[in-house]
């Protein structure tokens, strides 16, 4: 399984991960670094071993995932994960 973050504005892949947790951590870090508006143009896509694609979250839904993760980290319910990118 792989998780890829696409910039729908430029049409380019910007990050790839082995897990959804890592991908959402990247989205949350991007939100902190570049602001919430940046996430509005991103899409998180999952590809399974057979090459099937599924949308995990894009735009405001991805932003919501990032906000939820940030809130969980701030409340002590989760901790940042080291990302393994390609």
């Amino acid at each position: 399984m792989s998780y890829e973050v696409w910039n729908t504005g430029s049409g380019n892949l910007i990050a790839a991960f082995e897990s959804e947790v890592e991908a959402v951590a990247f989205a949350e870090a991007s939100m902190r670094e570049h602001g919430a508006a940046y996430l509005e143009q991103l899409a998180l896509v999952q590809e399974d071993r057979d090459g099937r694609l599924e949308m995990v979250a894009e735009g405001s839904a991805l932003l919501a995932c990032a906000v939820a993760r940030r809130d969980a980290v701030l409340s002590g319910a989760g901790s940042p994960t080291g990302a393994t990118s390609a």
Partner: protein
Amino acid sequence: MSGPIPTCSFSRLVHSDPPGEQDFRSDEACGEPLPVGDAARDRRWQGVSVFSTEAQARKLGRLVPRLGRFIAEVAVPHEGDITFARTGRSRGHFTLWGHPGELVRRVTRVVLVGTDDVPESERSATDEDRG
């Protein structure tokens, strides 16, 4: 004696037909911020995303329509100003590095992504997927 220059064909999702330089811009050229993270992302930030087959580009285009309505086929000479490398984790994804104008000049064909349901033959890894 010299023969035809060997080329490698790639497919990119684009917004216009015929595509323009704006369809072949890196995130750096678009003024997008450098993604948080590692050096691999820095390098990819300077290039443009393509797939090794039209089917791979079509699958993503149908899932994420905002990436573009068309698929442009680009023939890249093995030797020249355009370089490429396998990047990312998904099947067949490559990054091209080159001037947008040069990439546009290498477009050989443009087709619609299409909106029909994805045939089963395009959903699995058993089709023409490469890489």
